[in-house]
């Protein structure tokens, strides 16, 4: 074959990672997950301010009658909402998995690294200056914002001598979030759009419409497929740059493609539900625990678990304290913070 000794070592490392993968667990997550997801989606459609039995849900889907109020509620409010929750959950989780694999940073998450704050800032600008903008443009602004936030954080991190250490990225993310947050707050106070923005920013899928879903879904499907296509290269990148170069991986190209996919996923998700943090932090860790370190399994498993997490969080948010809606972003942060603390503590001073 003509492999040199180092290349043999690198092959060996890759093989070891692949050996730790647990395809049976992966397949069961995907199949059991699908069943659970269908079940929770049905539950989520039927539960809420107006309780509707599952039979009505069934007839709405297959024999929609626009004259019935129940059918109206289900078709116009509940179904888009639950689909939105599932899609957004997958997006945040997969973007987190890609970031963690690519940067080898266990704390990577679109919320912690400034992407959400950037997208939110751009949306605040939209709300203030172009209140009637069509949704397709809003989404473009959201992508731009995510790119802006990520660009600054990444740029600052890589400017320093020691490079992109996890702690440096988290600090830069916090500062960029503070800066963009302060600017959004200033805009909100001046134009008196504070409470609208706060509700949206807090993260909620309640306002999801068919129109929004039609705009975001094509982007997201493409991005998710792209993520799966890149998963092998991400596994190699997660072994470190030297191994990746040894295995002949074109790092520049893989990194650029992953960055674009991450921006699309996070930007579109933020434009639908607002800045939800911690999904991208928690889910990939969980997935890695379950299926091993091969990203060909981590990415699909993350997509499934992320969808489940957000659908269930949204369901909880509605029934925990009716008739008020608890923002899911807040709910997930309350689960995510202890998890983050645990990771930070376990990593000691080095993370």
């Amino acid at each position, binding site marked *: 074959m003509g492999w040199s000794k180092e290349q043999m070592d690198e092959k060996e490392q890759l093989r070891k990672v692949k050996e730790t993968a647990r395809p049976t667990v992966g397949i069961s997550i995907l199949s059991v997950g699908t069943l659970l997801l269908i079940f929770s989606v049905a539950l989520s459609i039927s539960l809420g301010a107006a309780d509707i039995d599952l039979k009505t849900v069934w007839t709405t889907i297959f024999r929609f009658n626009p004259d019935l109020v129940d059918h109206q509620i289900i078709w116009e409010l509940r179904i888009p909402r639950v689909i939105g929750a599932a899609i957004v959950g997958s997006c945040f989780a997969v973007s987190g998995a890609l970031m963690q694999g690519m940067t080898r940073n266990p704390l990577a998450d679109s919320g912690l690294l400034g992407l959400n704050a950037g997208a939110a800032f751009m949306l605040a600008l939209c709300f203030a200056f172009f209140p009637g903008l069509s949704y397709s443009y809003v989404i473009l602004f959201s992508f731009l914002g995510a790119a802006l936030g990520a660009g*600054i954080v990444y740029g600052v991190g890589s400017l*320093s*001598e020691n490079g992109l250490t996890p702690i440096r990225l988290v600090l830069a993310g916090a500062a960029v979030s503070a800066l963009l947050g*302060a600017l959004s707050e200033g805009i909100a106070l001046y134009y008196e759009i504070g409470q609208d923005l706060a509700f949206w920013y*807090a993260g909620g899928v309640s306002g999801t419409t068919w129109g929004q879903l039609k705009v975001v879904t094509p982007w997201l499907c493409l991005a998710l497929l792209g993520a799966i296509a890149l998963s092998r290269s991400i596994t190699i990148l997660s072994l470190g740059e030297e191994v990746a170069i040894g295995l002949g991986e074109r790092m520049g190209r893989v990194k650029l493609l992953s960055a674009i996919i991450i921006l699309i996923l996070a930007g579109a998700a933020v434009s639908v539900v607002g800045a939800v943090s911690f999904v991208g932090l928690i889910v990939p860790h969980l997935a890695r625990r379950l299926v091993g370190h091969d990203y060909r399994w981590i990415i699909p498993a993350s997509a499934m678990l992320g969808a489940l997490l957000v659908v269930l969080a949204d369901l909880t948010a509605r029934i925990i304290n009716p008739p008020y809606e608890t923002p899911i*972003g807040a709910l997930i942060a309350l689960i*995510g913070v202890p998890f983050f603390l645990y990771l930070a*503590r376990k990593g000691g001073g080095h993370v």
Partner: protein
Amino acid sequence: MINKQSKTKSQLKKERQVKLTALLLFLMIALCFFISLNTGHIRLSPQETLSTLFGQGTEQQSLILFDFRLPRMVIAILVGMGLAVSGAVLQGIVRNPLAEPGIIGINAGAGLAVMLFISFFATVSDAPVFLMPIIAFVGAGGAALLVYLLSYKRHEGISPIRLVLTGIAIAAGIDALMIVLTLRLDPENYQFLATWIAGSIWGSNWKFVLALLPWLLVFMPLIYSKSSVLNILNLGDETAIGLGAHMEKERRILLALAVVVAAACVSVSGGIGFVGLIAPHLTRRLVGDKHEYIIPISAMVGGLLLLIADTLGRGMIQPSEIPAGIIVAVIGAPYFLYLLAKTKD
């Protein structure tokens, strides 16, 4: 012998330099003070200001000046001083140039406490305003304690990185809780709270000056008297331990002092970040690494900074006001990022 003499000479030179810096800062504060007196929703010309100051203005003019503007400016300066000193102490004890009061949860804790307090009363105007600083103070202290406890490990004590990460996480958690509560507020209370959290000097009243001043008068000299301890801590753990095990105790006392001062400030000014970060840095550039100089000079820098921010916030977009905290964050965050890019862990 010669060596010793030249040392004292350089010390003298240093002292002269510090005095000169202090004088310049004082003049700048005085200048900004005068400009700030003239700025605001109702403009007063310099002559009007002067004559009002000497008791010869109209009733309306003296009302604006003495009852609204002056107390607010005095509070801006005091808060700036307190936050800066607190930041200088924190940076000294965790030996991390990126530490600042906001990062140990003080702003978040105070915000949550104020928010709970307002939700408890029907509207802001019903609430006894005097309780507010006390409540905020308790919230700030509580959050700081929580961050300390969560980042403490037995046998290892507090590592700066763990402290910072824990602070970020706790702040995120408290923000989430606040968002849940925010959505139930009526619009009037919401507007008040949003402005408070953004760091607007809202206690523009002499009574708030009186509420804040004693804390600073008692604790800032105490911190100053610990300058030499800070100098030793700054040398690094090994040196500090070599000099005695009581360093850990001293560190804890200093941390408590920094928290108390910052909490008192935040309780009247709302969540203002980054002053405690920038002021000590600029000061170290100006006067070097000795805390005998850093503490008083950074107090002046902090006071000047917040006075400028508040004046800008009042004058930039008439008739709206931009909270000082937002202006400080817009200047401070890029500076933080610059530092982050420059320092080696």
